[in-house]
Structures are given as C-alpha cells and as structure tokens.
C-alpha cells in the first residue's frame, strides 16, 4: 500500500464516513429491535372491523388522550391519575357508530366479548400519573370505568369488566 494510495481525498473520506454512519445506524436499529421486541409489539393497538384490520400506534392514542381524572384503582390500592379518551367517542371515531359488541384480546391471552358500550363512563386509558403504561403496569392500554359507584373496592370480582393489556379489539356486528 503506497503513500499515495494511503491518501484519501476529502470526498472519499466523507463517503466512507457516511457509510460508517449508515452501518452503525443499521446495527443500532437491529440491536434495538432485538433488544426490545416486546416493547415494539406492545406499542400498537390492532382494530379489526370485518375484513379491515388497522394498527394504531399507542403514541397516537397518547395524542388523543384528552381527559385526565383521578381514580382509586382497586388493583393498585391507591389514587391514580389516569389519562385517556372516552371509549364511546373513540368507537364512533373509528367505526362511525357504537358496535353492538366488542371482542377484546389482551397481551396475556385473555379474551372476552362485551357489549353495551354506548356509555360515556368507560375510558380507554393510555397514561398513568403522566407516564405511558407498560405491560408491567397492565398496559399499554386499559379500559376502566370512571365512576364505579359504591362498589366494594375490596372485592375485585366487582371489577371483572375492566380489561387490561389490550392488544386487539374486534368488532362484532
């Protein structure tokens, strides 16, 4: 290898630097995708309406979470500041009307079909105490009642309709 050969023009060096950056970026992306596959997966909500399936980023849901309220969460045993969107309005926004029934699938494989959603008391929660919900916090999306009346907070059976870790919502017409 000669000295001339060892000399690099600024254009070549810039090109090599750009290539290096590209390689590094790809490696970082690959590494990130392998290191946090769960987080990537749990950051979308799948909506199924007949033959149409759409993936909604949870970040989009954060953006439309326009209501904040404080609620005693019987599962956590403390007052929690929840932030989300009225589920009734969300359904109308997504499907044009309130479907008669919805089939929920959670990240923990829990599945349930529930109806009577024409009720402004239900909220789709995406943030808690100002932070996005993780799977550890039974997120990324949770369905809760804003007002659960005088139900006994010590009897968790009374809150069976709350759906955690929502992964997929399928409309049942």
């Amino acid at each position: 290898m000669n000295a001339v050969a060892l000399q690099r023009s600024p254009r070549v060096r810039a090109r090599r630097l750009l290539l290096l950056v590209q390689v590094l970026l790809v490696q970082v992306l690959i590494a990130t995708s392998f290191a946090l596959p769960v987080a990537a997966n749990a950051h979308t909500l799948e909506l199924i309406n007949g033959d149409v399936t759409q993936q909604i980023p949870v970040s989009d849901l954060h953006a439309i979470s326009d209501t904040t309220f404080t609620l005693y969460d019987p599962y956590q045993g403390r007052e929690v500041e929840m932030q989300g969107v009225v589920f009734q309005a969300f359904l109308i926004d997504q499907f044009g009307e309130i479907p008669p029934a919805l089939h929920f699938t959670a990240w923990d494989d829990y599945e349930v079909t529930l109806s009577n959603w024409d009720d402004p008391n239900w909220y789709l929660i995406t943030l808690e105490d100002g932070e996005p919900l993780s799977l550890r916090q039974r997120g990324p999306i949770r369905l809760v009642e804003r007002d659960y009346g005088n139900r006994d907070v010590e009897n968790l059976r009374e809150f069976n309709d709350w759906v955690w870790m929502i992964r997929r919502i399928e409309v049942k017409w």
Partner: protein
Amino acid sequence: MTSKAKQVESHAVRPRPLVRQYRYITWLSLSLMSFLALMVLIIYESRWVYPEIQAYFSQTGNLSGQQLATRSRMYLQNAQAELLTDQPEQAAFDAAFMNIELAYGLSDMHIYRREYECSEPSLAVLNRLLTWLEVREIDRVNAVGELFTPIQCLSHIEMDQLDQRGAAINYFSESTRQHNQMLTYSSLLIFVLGLAFWGLHERQLHRTDRATRETLEWMQRAMRDPLTGVGNRSALLQDVLANQHQSLGLILVDIDFFKQYNDAYGHPQGDTLLHQLATIIGQALNHDAQLYRLGGDEFAALLHCPDSETLKRYCRQIIEGVREANFAHAAHPDKKGVTLSVGGCCFVANEHTFTLAYEAADKALYQVKTAGRDGWQVTE
C-alpha cells in the same frame, strides 16, 4: 208477652253481623297472610342462594376464573422454559422478557402486597431481572435461578388463596345449611300458623252459619202461630207484599159462639178445636191457600183468585168441610155443632189495597153474622 221476655227474644234474634264479619275477615286475612309470608320466605331464600353460587363459581373453567397468582406463576415458568430451550440467546431473552413482564403485571396487586410479605421482594427481583435481561448482564442459567424465588412466593399466594376460597366455600356451605334449617322451621311454623288461622276462620264461618240459621228460625217462628202452626198476621202481610200486583183472594173465617164453646168445654178443649179447625180449613182449601190465625177465633186465608167464582167455591168448601167434621158444640144457641162464618173478597195485591180488602172481607163476614151465622158471603 212481658217486656223482659221481649228483651230476651230481641237479643236472641238480633244478629251481630259487624262483629262476626270483622272476626271472619281477620282470621281469613291472617291465614292468607301466613301463606303469603311463606311464599315470600321461600322466594327470598332461593334468591339468596343463587347470587352466592354465582359469585363463587360462575367463572370456574375460564381464564378469568384462575387466580392472578396462578397465571403469573405460569408466565414465570414459561420464561424459565424459554431460557432453557435450545434457541439463540437473543430469542430466549426476548421471550423470557415478555413472559416476565406479563407475570409482573399480573402479580403487582395491592391485595398481594398487603397480605403477603414475599410479594414486594418478589416484584423487586423481577424488576431487577428485567433490567439485567434488557442489558444482557445475566446468563440464562442464573436468570432461571432468579425466578425461583418469585415462583415460590406466587405458589404460596396460590395455596393461601385456595385455602381462603375453601374457607369461603365452607362458610357458604354452613350458611346454606343454616338458611335451609331456618327455611324449614320457618316454613313449618308459618304453615302451622296458616292452618291454625284457617281453622279459626272455618270455626268462625261455622258459627256465623249457625247464627244465621238461628236468626232465620227465629224469624220464621215470629211469623207462626204457636198454637195452630199456621202463619200469623205478620206472615199474612208479608205474603201479600210478596205477591204484589197479583190477583188474590182474602177469606176471613170466624168460629161462631167460640166463647160459649170455651165456657162449655174449657180453654184447653178450645185450643184443640182451633188446631183441628186449622187442619180442616187447610184441607178444604186443597192446600192451594195459605192459612193464618189472626187472633182469638179468627182465621184468614190467602189464595190466588182469577175470579170471584173461585173464591166462592173455596168459601163453600170451608163451610161444608166443617159441617162434615161435625164438631160437637153443646153451648151453641141454635143447637148445632161447631159452625163458621166466612167472608171474602178478591183484590189486586199491594199494601194499600190489602187494607181495603180486609175491610171488605170483614164487612162480608159481618153480614153473615148478622144473617144468623153458619154461612159465607163474598164482596164482589
């Protein structure tokens, strides 16, 4: 009749409808209320049992029926399996990470933190392990080892929760037994009470019936002449009113020289004669008429009278019947046996015309008497 006797009769005859009906309704109401209470009790008890069963056993067999601790433990065991399977380390870590996160979410419960000391340290272990997995600062075998403590804690929670559920079932079973006992004894008691009230009601009903019968008997007696058994003046008036707007015949019969008969034979014999005459007159009228004793030696007969000829025929039959009987009368001024004077008239029945008919028949009777007795006359 003395005033005291009148009082006694009046008291005996007068019904006590208000008091009797009040008691009758009360016993009946109590009886019905008892059976109603029995129904309510049975419905209440059956409605009590159903929600309890629903609460405890409705979710048996599905995912939400499992304990959160059970599901959490299963995810941790899945994580161990993923770490120990023959797969690339990255894939094993990713799968384990996912399972541990889910396990954490299902076990991070206020009720577990509050009631189980091992809960907080287990969650701390899981948190630390997740961090290590994220930054690859732990090998597979050590990661599997780290999970044993949380699994042990979750198993402990599961067993305790099962014990609690067993205790709840035992309590429910005991409560059900107590409710069954209460239902049985209460039902029996209420049923017996209902029967007792029903018995009292039946007794009261029987008494009421008997009192009604007695009242009717007294009323009938009040309408009868006790000596001859035929009706009295009140019965005559009642029968006239019961046949309003019908054409009736009224016949008045008077025994000739009855005072002399009594003087000659004595009053008991006079009474016997009255009784016999009542029978004779009844037979003479072919039982087509009602016979009444108006007092003393005066009888009256009421019959349907389509025309005056019918009335005349009956009058003639009465006279002839007594003549045929030929009762002896030693004191008769004309040396005859017992004879009668008979007067009659036809009228359309109502209260006002009866008075006029009575006067007309009496006038005809008077004419017979003034003409020498032992005969009959009808006012046209």
